Structures are given as C-alpha cells and as structure tokens.
C-alpha cells in the first residue's frame, strides 16, 4: 500500500519537498498525524487535502496508488 504526497506553496517550503511516497497509511487522519509530527509548522497552516484531485473535508480511507495533495489557502487571481 503506497501513496504519493504532493505539497504546494508554503507546505512545500515547510516539508522541503514537492512530492514523495509513503507506505502503510490507512487514512487521512493517520496521514495528518504523521505529517504534523514530522513537520510541526504545518499545524499553523489552514490547509486542505485532496485525494486524486478531489478535496476531502472528512476523513477518508486511502487506496493504494492514490495521490494526496496538501493545499495551503488558495491565493490566485
């Protein structure tokens, strides 16, 4: 069970990377816990999570090969 994480904006800055793989993460809640443990500054960002390009407000189970995007507040336009 492997997922790909992609990070943008200040989240890419905090994590120091734009894309990486993780194994054995069952769901979004578990992923957030791991990320916030490894990168405590993430907790200061009001970020959203998208699974395979769809924003997920609730917890959700992660399927093998899914891509999880970490999205800081949008500021386009």
């Amino acid at each position: 069970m492997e997922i790909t994480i992609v990070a943008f904006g200040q989240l890419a800055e905090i994590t120091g990377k734009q894309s990486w793989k993780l194994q054995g993460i069952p769901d979004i809640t578990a992923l957030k816990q791991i990320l916030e443990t490894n990168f405590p500054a993430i907790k200061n960002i009001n970020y959203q999570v998208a699974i395979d390009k769809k924003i997920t407000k609730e917890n959700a189970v992660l399927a093998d090969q899914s891509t999880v995007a970490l999205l800081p507040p949008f500021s386009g336009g």
Partner: protein
Amino acid sequence: MEKQIKNIFYAGAIQPDFISKSISNHSTKTDIGAHSIFLGQVRSDIIQDKKVAAIEYSSYEPMALEKMHELREQIFSKYQLTCMHIHHSLGIVPAGEICLFVFTSSKHRRDAIDACNEVVELIKKELPVWGKEIFEDGKHVWKASN
C-alpha cells in the same frame, strides 16, 4: 463523452497584445452585443516595510484544470453566454503586469457582466493556485487568500 479540458495557464505576465487579439477574434461573432473583461494586475504592496516587486504563481495544475472545467459548466448553465475565456499566469509576474484575464461575451450585457463577476470570485476561491510575493531584496511571503 470525452471532457474537453481547456488549458487556462499562461507563462508569465499576460501581454496587452494577447488581450487585443482575443477581443478582435470575436468580431466575426455578430450575435455578441457585450463583452465583460476582468484583469488582475500585480500590486507593489508594502508588507513589513518592504515593497513587492513581483508575484510568482504556482498551481496544482491537473486539479486546477479539472476544477475550472466544472466551474465553466456551472457558469454556462446559469448564464446565456456566447463564450468565456480564462487565462491565469504561472511563474513570475512583475508589479504592474497582468496576472489574470477573464473574458465573457453575450448577446445582452447582464449575462456577460454577471458571469464575469461570478467566475472571478470562483477562480479566487476555488482554484488551487498560490501567489508568492517577492520583495525587491529577493525575500518573499505567501500571498494571503482574498
């Protein structure tokens, strides 16, 4: 049916000549009576005593294009539009230059105007795009959402 996903991204500042070409492309569509255009321009704001020299835009492009496709369908189902064109910069746009170009056209003016207003709000709220405000000294802050 295949979705026709249009690219909205434009490398760097959107040039006024590109805008005028886009306008003149509509002269053969003689059922159009009104065009509404919104342009976003990069401001040289002062933040913590430092002046913004440019904004560097990045995006989660595949998601942004899918989302824009949805917004497009939503707007076309709500307003009687002849056409709608959206262009958003990626990469560095210096202060004073154009970073967003929204262009709607319709027979009667209310549709073009209201659709343009609404899609500008949706773009700012829903597209995964980020602006990094770069100061004259090369340091930066992340643009606050608007």
